[in-house]
């Protein structure tokens, strides 16, 4: 027993703790008067697919460039694979990056281009040659080996850029809107390919995008950014079901946003008064919202119903302005009494009951109402 005790006390924690591929500790970056990143902290576990999502100018690309070493943060730390890297130049970091317009070298053939990273690592010529051939084959671009980028299509360029970045098997692959330059019809396929590539290789991906469909279908972790800050980070489901702030609720599709004041903070539920009625919702864990304070909350379009029951405590009448049918979903667009839009999604399999022009009483459960933290924007 005595010999076992010390062994149990220490080592297991070290191996059990998941290794972080990347850690950002409240990094800040200013360009003159413009604050590009304001205290961004992030932990990326080994092999995670992280999507930085936000509108343009929110700081997601600057964050990526800081991770790559192309910008140096004014403040904060960057750890790559647990190693301090804040001051390291890009060529000393264990990363690779794929640029939005792919940044292929116009004077190099595809083979030379893809082998560039290995050449920089001073690998023997024969090894580079066989490895390039292997990678080109696995990306199905072997036939392009002797072509120059100028003669390639968008999809081919994308593959070359990806092959060039992946060949050195970096710890982190940084992707700046990697499919933004592709034709819309190609994106879906490329997205699926990239996801399966990421899962196969176990390389952590940090994917910057302004497209929430990309972020929610690809990311293990979605980081929503706005105005140089992280608004919320979590799994796609967490962000879709529990938007943490008014910004996230309005940025992510399918939410109905309300603003109001706390009328009554009772034990069980919070009562919030808005321009279109009074609504009940659960308290936010750990947050005290005193009576009279301004708050915002949201409810997802698919949580609303027009088949009201005793559990639908939150009710509201609105005029239907449009009905859109998407096959799996029938979306009803309503105009609220305060002029804002309210969306109500129904399974497409249901038969249509509501027609534009009709005034309908809608309702949803208090539990499906999500109170936001922070001041309502």
């Amino acid at each position, binding site marked *: 027993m005595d010999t076992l005790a010390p062994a149990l006390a220490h080592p297991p924690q070290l191996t059990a703790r998941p290794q972080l591929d990347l850690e950002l500790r409240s990094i800040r970056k200013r360009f003159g008067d413009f604050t590009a990143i304001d205290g961004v902290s992030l932990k990326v576990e080994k092999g995670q697919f992280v999507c930085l999502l936000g509108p343009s100018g929110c700081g997601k690309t600057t964050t990526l460039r800081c991770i*790559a*070493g*192309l910008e140096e943060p004014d403040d904060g730390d960057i750890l790559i694979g647990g190693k301090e890297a804040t001051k390291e*130049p*890009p*060529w*000393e*970091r264990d*990363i*690779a*990056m794929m*640029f939005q*317009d792919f*940044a*292929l*070298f*116009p*004077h190099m053939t595809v083979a030379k281009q893809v082998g*560039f*990273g290995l050449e*920089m*690592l001073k690998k023997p010529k024969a090894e580079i040659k066989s490895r390039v051939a292997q990678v080109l084959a696995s990306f199905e671009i072997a036939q392009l080996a002797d072509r120059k980028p*100028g003669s390639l299509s968008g999809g081919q360029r994308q593959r070359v850029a990806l092959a*060039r*970045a992946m060949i*050195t098997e970096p710890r982190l692959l*940084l992707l700046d809107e990697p499919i933004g330059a592709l034709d819309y019809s190609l994106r879906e396929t490329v997205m699926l390919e990239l996801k399966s590539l990421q899962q196969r290789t176990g390389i952590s991906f940090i994917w910057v995008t302004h497209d929430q469909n990309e972020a929610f279908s690809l990311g293990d972790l979605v980081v929503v950014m706005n105005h140089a800050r992280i608004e919320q980070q979590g799994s796609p489901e967490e962000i879709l079901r529990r938007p943490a702030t008014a910004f996230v609720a309005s940025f992510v599709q399918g939410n109905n946003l309300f603003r109001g004041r706390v009328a009554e903070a009772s034990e069980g539920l919070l009562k919030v008064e808005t321009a279109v009625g009074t609504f009940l919702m659960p308290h936010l864990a750990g947050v005290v919202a005193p009576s009279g304070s301004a708050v915002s909350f949201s409810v997802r379009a698919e949580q609303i119903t027009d088949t009201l029951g005793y559990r639908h405590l939150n009710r509201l009448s609105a005029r239907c302005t449009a009905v859109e049918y998407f096959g799996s979903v029938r979306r009803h667009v309503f105009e609220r009494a305060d002029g804002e839009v309210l969306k109500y999604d129904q399974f497409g399999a249901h038969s249509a009951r509501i027609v534009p022009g009709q005034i309908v009483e809608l309702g949803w459960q208090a539990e499906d109402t999500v109170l936001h933290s922070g001041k309502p924007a």
Partner: protein
Amino acid sequence: MLGVVVVPIVLLAWVSLWGGRAFSTASPLTFDNYARFFANQTYLKLAGSTILHTAILMVVTGVLGYCIAYFLTMKVRSPGWRLALFLAFIVPFWTSTLIRAIAWVPFLGVNGVINQALMSIGATRSPIEAFLYSVTGITMAQVSLYTMMAAGPVVYMLNSIAPQLREAAMTLKATPFTVFRRVTLPLTLPGVVIGQVLVFLNVMADFATVATIGGNKHALLSNLVLLFYESSQIRAASVVAVLLMICMLVGVVIALRVVDIRRLGVER
């Protein structure tokens, strides 16, 4: 084009082939004039030194011009400063070559600015006479005259390289020097070649600088043309002129072989 360029050249070539003693259109056509030129050791040496001199200038202006172009486009961040520096470099080109050449005389002379400066900082005790009326002086003046010709096209090419290309190379583990060697330099090579062609053509044709700074003690092929012309040896003058033109043509053809200038700016 035909009237201003081709006809004079044909005329020149024709005159260079005139034989006989009389200076008339009835002269028989012969290569005697050329034979006489190539038989003369002094002329051949002059041709050799002209080519050597031009080569030295191409190297010096090429390196210097590239450095200036790189500094202007990569290191000067403020657009205002960049414009100011660029203007400072090109404004002198608004005056004629002859005037710029003459402007060097007070700089290079025994009591000139350079000697005064050298003596005041104690670098030399007595003035250096080698600056004016010497090959060194000619070279110095021509370097200052033609460096911007070498730099201009490089500035253009450097500006056309997307910054992401250098960044992409850096994220692929290339150090700044490797980025320059493998990405920046190859992509600006067409600009370097065009600059070199401009310098080559101008130095080969520049008799004014050689005459003023060289003080008629030194000559290159272009001065020989002038010399023959002034002494009414029109046939000899046209022979040298034709040879000079052939030299220039060969130079341009070699340059075009190295870089396809016609594709400049098309490639991304």
